[in-house]
């Protein structure tokens, strides 16, 4: 509790008059230079207000005489990054995809450029490591809808799938059920047949009947042996890798309503070098085909 300041008999220093459980605080004065530093910080703060953006105004803020903006700082950082990367970026721009993969230094650099670009643009659908999700293909495996060669991957990234772009990967699976092409028992039987190709049992389905339905309706795109057709983006139905799932209800829904997933076109959104780096990055995730 506060009391009148007194002189501490032990040290001869005045106390602050504050006391806690008999412990009193000495009022030792600060050195003079310390006090100066305190005043200097006040002056500094005023200078800071003048120089840098600081005070909120009604619909804006005080901009400061330096005109400093955090956005300018980012722009400057990006410019420096571009300058640092310059020579390698030029090499990347000049080289073909095959040349990039063959040159260890360019390959490392392309992967380093591709990785953050993938995280920013592709990961929301395909997952952080390209592991895929339901309806979004896993990019690490060797099962490709539109082809896993370097140029195939680069083309898909550039133009997208059913994106509306002129050169986009284009195909449409009919909605066999919704449009009345197949009856429900025919759909059930063809589901049973497709499942049987992957050693999955479907009790009560007539596999033979399903095989006939498949040959008449599905084999056009998916092939006689159901191995798929990359020209049309028709998946291989025999490799136990499923884009949407292999359960009876899921396959029934796929055949009834069709799927026709969409991937945006990236040409025009990302620059050419980044697109190249992305193609190399996806190619080197593990599934790339020579």
């Amino acid at each position, binding site marked *: 509790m506060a009391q009148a300041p007194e002189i501490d008999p032990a040290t001869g220093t005045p106390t602050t008059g504050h006391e806690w459980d008999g412990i009193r605080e000495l009022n030792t004065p600060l050195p003079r230079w310390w006090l100066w530093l305190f005043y200097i910080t006040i002056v500094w703060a005023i200078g800071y207000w003048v120089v840098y953006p600081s005070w909120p105004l009604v619909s804006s803020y005080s901009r400061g005489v330096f005109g400093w903006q955090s956005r300018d700082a980012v722009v400057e950082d990006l410019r420096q990054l571009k300058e640092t990367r310059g020579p390698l970026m030029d090499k990347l721009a000049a080289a073909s995809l095959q040349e990039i993969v063959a040159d*260890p230094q360019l390959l490392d650099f392309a992967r380093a450029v591709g990785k953050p670009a993938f995280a920013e643009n592709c990961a929301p659908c395909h997952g952080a490591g390209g592991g895929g999700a339901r309806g979004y293909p896993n990019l690490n495996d060797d099962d490709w809808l539109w082809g896993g060669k370097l140029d195939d991957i680069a083309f898909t990234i550039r133009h997208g799938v059913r994106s509306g772009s002129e050169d986009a990967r284009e195909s449409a699976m009919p909605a066999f059920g919704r449009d009345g092409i197949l009856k429900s028992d025919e759909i059930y039987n063809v589901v049973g047949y497709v499942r049987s190709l992957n050693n999955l049992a479907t009790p009560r389905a007539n596999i033979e009947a399903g095989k006939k339905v498949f040959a008449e309706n599905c084999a056009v795109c998916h092939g006689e042996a159901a191995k798929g057709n990359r020209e049309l983006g028709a998946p291989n139905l025999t490799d136990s890798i499923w884009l949407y799932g292999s359960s009876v209800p899921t396959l029934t829904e796929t055949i009834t309503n069709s799927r026709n997933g969409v991937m945006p076109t990236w040409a025009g959104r990302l620059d050419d070098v980044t697109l190249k780096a992305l193609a190399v990055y996806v190619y080197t995730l593990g599934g790339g085909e020579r």
Partner: protein
Amino acid sequence: MLEQQLTPERNKACSDANCKLFDLAQHPNAPAMIPPAVPDETPEPEDEVPLYAARRKIYPQAVTGTFRRIKWAVLVVTLGIYYLLPFVRWDRGPTAPDQAVLIDFTTRRFYFFFIEIWPQEVYYVTGLLIIAAVTLFLMNAVAGRIWCGYLCPQTVWTDLFCAIERFTEGDRREHLRRDREPMSLNKAARKATKHFLWLMIAWWTGGAWVLYFADAPTLVKDLATLQAPFAAYAWIGILTATTYLLAGHMREQVCLYMCPWPRIQAALTDEYALNVTYRYDRGEPRGSVKKNEQLRQKGLPAGDCVDCLQCVNVCPTGVDIRGGANLGCIQCGLCIDACDSIMTKLGRPKGLIAYDTELNIHRRQHGEKPSFHIVRPRTIVYAAIIAAVGAIMLYTLVTREVAGINVIHDRNPMFVRLADGAIRNGYTIRILNKTNEQRTFRLEVSGITVSALEIIGDPAGAAGPHEIVVGPDQTREIRALVTVYQPLPPDASIPLMFTITDTHSGVRAASADQFRGP
């Protein structure tokens, strides 16, 4: 240690500003403190406490003697090392810098003669810090503030700056007299010379600092031709300013107000630690030469202290050592030199002020022999800790691996099922080559019976051999794929081992990881 003997009377003795801050071993029989050499200019009003304490300017007087010689020697050696070490060369081959001590931020390497440390080995610094701290404790247990008095950069540079001040503005008396006089051309010239010399030394100090971070001869040339990076000039500027301010202007204020060590030191000391001590058992009662001589002839008690104030005049922090050990005393021993020279002139034995302990003063007062215990449990434990940490560091340095491998398993996806039913895992592998030559490592995987190993970008494909070239003193990151064709148990997690072998020397390094399945 002596708390039970402390009485309120002792407090009267302690009226000096320095004494207020701290008193370690004030004894009831200790002499009354003499008033400060220069009286405090801001007397405290009864009812109002001043906002600040004005600094009492200190004019340390030149002194000669053993401890002064030791201090000069330490100054020459430590500053010599600091200023010249960057120019010492050490051959490490054509691919590495040839500077003996170099902190290379660009390539993130620290070179110290035969030692090279990578950023991930920065734990060596932990060992160094432990050794440094315990060495400080050991110094303190043996002979008080050896660090403060002789080795601390603040002390060494202040000592140098004080010497320059005496050289330009004269010794204590002359300097005091001139400071009281009005400004004259002579006085201004002297002061200007002093500040110029101070700034030159400060500038050289900053200049030497940056040389530890780049090739010294090249940087010196670049600095001179204004081609050095801005950061180099900025750091030279910063260190010039701090040296000039701290050694020229702040001096003892750094020790009194800024440095934490005096506070810690006080908690670490014990009754056997030697400290610069005024032997008041011999010195008191103090008096003038004549008065004490008369007392002695009458057979009355008379001390050896003649109150000449030489001990205070030479003190770089303005302390009166006769008030007992205190926070302001950095224990540089200069008062010992000053007192010894006076005692010699008076024909009295030396050592009225000496490295001694409060305990020994007591023992002598009670007619016992003084006891010195340099080797005692405290110093043995400190020495043992230093030896143990040093031995561990030496062992790790000697057995330092020159090749390394770090493996990170893919997190998304954990595993990939291929069209033919095989399971594949992806790994990011970093291979470390800590030698200064390019090396080729062969990568192998073991622990899984049927597997294929592939490295992205490796033309050898799955067939192998998987040889990876890593540049001198570099790391290389690769992506490896391991495929298992055999059926796996559900939720499999099989331990496997990646091994690299230097194809030339056969040096190996390994890292364990897991193979995951559905």
